[in-house]
């Protein structure tokens, strides 16, 4: 299945899904800290790609921008959670938690510590750091958060310093 990006450019959602779904899920998980919400974000992002593909933005950057917007909208007010009862197919009763029951308890606690600190950063700082971790260029990050390319390095460094300060008190606890 392909959809038109423009009259001359075609986007292959299948290929994009294969290439970016995992990274997008990881990004959404770091943004919101909730596996179920992150899964919803990824699904909705790719459905939007199919329904209304981007015209002037590179697909990968577009995917992460949409996911960022969804994490903000859905994570903030919980409006996405006007859930009706969910019905799980009888043949699909498996845990979808990313770390599963055998995951390292220490690793999960550290994830929670880092996420708690991340969630206290301003949204722009958090997005800059997380997009940087996903390998986006400073120009792409600047376009996503609405700043100049030259300032991304400075903003990222300040955000890391803030993150360090937020993590430091937790390190000192017995």
């Amino acid at each position, binding site marked *: *299945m392909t959809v038109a990006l423009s009259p001359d450019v075609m986007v292959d*959602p*299948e290929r994009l*899904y294969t290439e970016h*779904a*995992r990274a997008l*899920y*990881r990004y959404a*998980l*770091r943004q919101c800290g909730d*596996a179920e919400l992150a*899964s*919803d974000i*990824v*699904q*909705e992002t*790719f*459905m939007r790609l*199919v*329904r209304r593909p981007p015209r002037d933005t590179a697909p990968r950057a577009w995917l992460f921008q949409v996911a960022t917007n969804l994490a903000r909208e859905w994570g903030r007010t919980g409006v996405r959670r006007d859930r*009706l*009862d*969910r*019905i*799980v*197919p*009888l*043949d*699909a009763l*498996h845990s*979808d*938690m*990313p*770390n*599963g029951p055998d995951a390292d308890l220490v*690793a999960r606690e*550290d*994830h929670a510590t*880092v*996420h708690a600190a*991340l969630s206290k950063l301003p949204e722009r700082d958090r997005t800059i*750091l*997380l997009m940087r*971790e996903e390998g986006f*260029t*400073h120009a792409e990050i600047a376009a996503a958060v609405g700043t100049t*390319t030259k*300032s*991304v*390095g*400075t*903003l*990222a*460094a*300040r955000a*890391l*310093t803030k*993150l*360090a300060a937020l*993590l430091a008190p937790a390190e000192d606890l017995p």
Partner: protein
Amino acid sequence: MSLHVVTHPEPAMPHIEDGDLLRFEDAELSPDDRARVAEHLARCARCSGQRAALLAIAGRLRAAYHDAVLPRALATPPWHEPRLHVAARPARASARRVRRTVRIALWAGIGVAGLAVAAAASPPLRGWLASRIRPPAAPAPVVTRVTDRPTTGTPGAVSRTAEVAFVPTSTTLTISLRGARGDSIEVRPTTSEVVRVRGRATGGEPTVVVLPDGLTLLSPPAGTTAYQVDVPPNVQSVEIRHDARSLARLTRESLARQGGWRSRLP
């Protein structure tokens, strides 16, 4: 003759700003600036220490969820598998209950009696009272069986049928459907109290109404309490409205709610 040599210490090189340290890490500096920073880092313990501190925090961030596994629900793109989402909400309070409430209020006191009298005379106020009477919650719908079978014409595709049991007389059953553009769902009524979800990708009966959002409806005979819809492999969930209202009314409501699809399910 003696040679008088005067040496001047080189001016101290300013430290590298944190922003430039990250730009250096991210290969965002020009070649000349990159070489300057690299040379400075080789000679300056303060800046190389600061660089290490920034990278350490970035490393903590990278480690968080780095090993996150794609959950089963995301193993395939959302447009691959049919998904089902079923919900129920209680029907609106009946007029009889409103009248009973008014009768009780008449005996409760002057202020409330006045309200009751006003309600009896005023349809809007009666409606307001009715909106606050909550009928008992209906039992939640239950998926009793889900079966997949191959469909002809599309290799590897399956049609998923879900049987959902619900209490038809006191619930509005909503099953959300969403899929790729062009899909339509054929809805057939049954006389049993079990809803079968069945639909197909294209086409429809002459009596079918195809809505812009892809939902196709058939007018149910009087007394029908269930709908039957197959879920094609490239749809995500199914939406049917059933609350004993007419097809026309359902059509207008579905049009009004276009874009209100709910994505669903693991």
